[in-house]
């Protein structure tokens, strides 16, 4: 669980994380918003279904891959929040693009 040291000043956007609307500072990474707003994990692994959370926050661990606006396997620490963004935990290999 993570918290903010101060209330966010400046522009605020609304994103939806796993069905819940939350307000986050504009320009923040999705991974940060997820860590502050929810308990637990960003994905479950394709091999065993184990839950995982971000490890490195700098794009080299790939534990933070989530489904963002319908597209899976996006590194949440490399994507900035935008108003109306839909953020979902990724389960295994994620949603099939070739449904």
């Amino acid at each position, binding site marked *: 669980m993570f918290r*903010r*040291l101060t209330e966010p000043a400046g522009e605020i956007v609304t994103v939806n994380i796993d069905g819940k609307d939350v307000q986050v500072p504009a320009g923040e*990474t999705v991974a*940060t918003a997820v860590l502050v707003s929810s308990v637990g994990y960003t994905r479950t692994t394709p091999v065993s279904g184990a839950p995982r959370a971000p490890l490195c926050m700098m794009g080299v*661990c*790939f534990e933070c891959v989530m489904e963002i606006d319908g597209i899976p*396997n996006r590194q949440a620490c490399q994507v900035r929040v935008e108003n109306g963004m839909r953020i979902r935990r990724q389960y295994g290999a994620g949603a099939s693009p070739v449904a």
Partner: protein
Amino acid sequence: MPEFGELLVIGGGPAGLTAATTAARLGIYTTLLDEQPAPGGQIYRGVEEAPKPRAELLGPDYQRGARIVQAFRASDAKHLPETTVWSLGPDGKVGILRDGQARIIQASRIILACGATERAVPFPGWTLPGVMNAGAAQILLKSSGVVPADGLVIAGAGPLMLLLAWQYLRAGVRVKAILELSPHVNLWHAAPRLPSALLAGHYITRGFRYLLDLRIGGIPVHFGVSGLRALGEEQLNAIEYLHHGRCHTLPTGQLLIHFGLVPNTHLTEAAGCRHIWNPGQQCWLPATDDWGNTSASGIAVVGDNATIGGARAAEHAGHLAALEAARALHRLNTTERDRQGKDDRGWMRDDLRIRPFLEALHHLPESLLATRDDDTLVCRCEEVTAGQIRQAVREGHTDPNQVKFISRCGMGPCQGRQCAHAVAHIVADETKRPISEQTPFRVRPPVRPISIAQLATLEPSKESA
């Protein structure tokens, strides 16, 4: 004049910023490519936007970054933020991705300044949610003023642990304990190196100040800890460790780990540069000369990307590489280059004096680097355990690349970034051949994932290469 100029600098931390600023000042048409939206790299991440209270909390070293960024902004160097570099060939061709458009670009000289990543050291339970790198916690703090909500434990080896704990103390974040996994014997090896380390006095005094403040703040610091395990079912709820011969359990929902830094060598490896195992830093470094030139013509590497030396040394290395680029591009002759670089070379030498001491103090034992716990996951992406890797070696797959092929270890999305070192240590341990003789995983492009649609935007070849 090619579109991106004569010199490409890749990476927006202190080494890259200084290289680009110096090169521009010498009249070289320079472009800096950065993955981030704003300059600063990891160490000065968010420095331009940091509100004053946060910048003060982070300390004077962090604030120095603002000046370096300002100097870069004021220079004539072009800045391309939010640009991903996904390939670097031995021929110096750089694959970039910007706004969904892929391109292959080229320049006469390239300076790589991609910095370092935290060394990944597998231990039981390290993949549980609740276990995060200390550097990741720093990024949360620097970019967004975000901190752990409840108490936390910091474990590992290296000065970053003390710095982070000190920053948290000032921010009112509860640090339950700091567990130093460097064995006591390190003190004996480090002590002879202390005198020359004192010549880089500011590091030592800084370290003592942190220790003192942490002491006053009531945060226990335990040295010589071993046997670290993270416990929990789907989430971390406690850690276990050995200290002074006894086993301790400490409930916590957050563990921040740090086992030192290793250069981010994916681009130097993709470009085919020669790398050498450095026993002091316990990792592979790109082979360079005094000016940062690698074994690939026209490609230099500086800062922590070349050798773990810290932010100050990185600035000087950036400056020197820019001078060398100026020589190669006929702006300076050798004498002039040497003269202009004299001071930085001296300062860099001074900044690096602390390193032998720190390396000895935080030297990680093989028992930690090559876990003997067969159930511990080494490859996080493909969930390959240490036991499976040892078994592969016993079955005749005796180098890390063969282990990778047979087990899929290193074939997941991170392409071995988190497991390459651990696999090499385990293979060295199993084959009884030194780590210096092991080959790292072969690195192939793209060094950052690129979608099929993005790659399809690349211009087709006009003739075969």
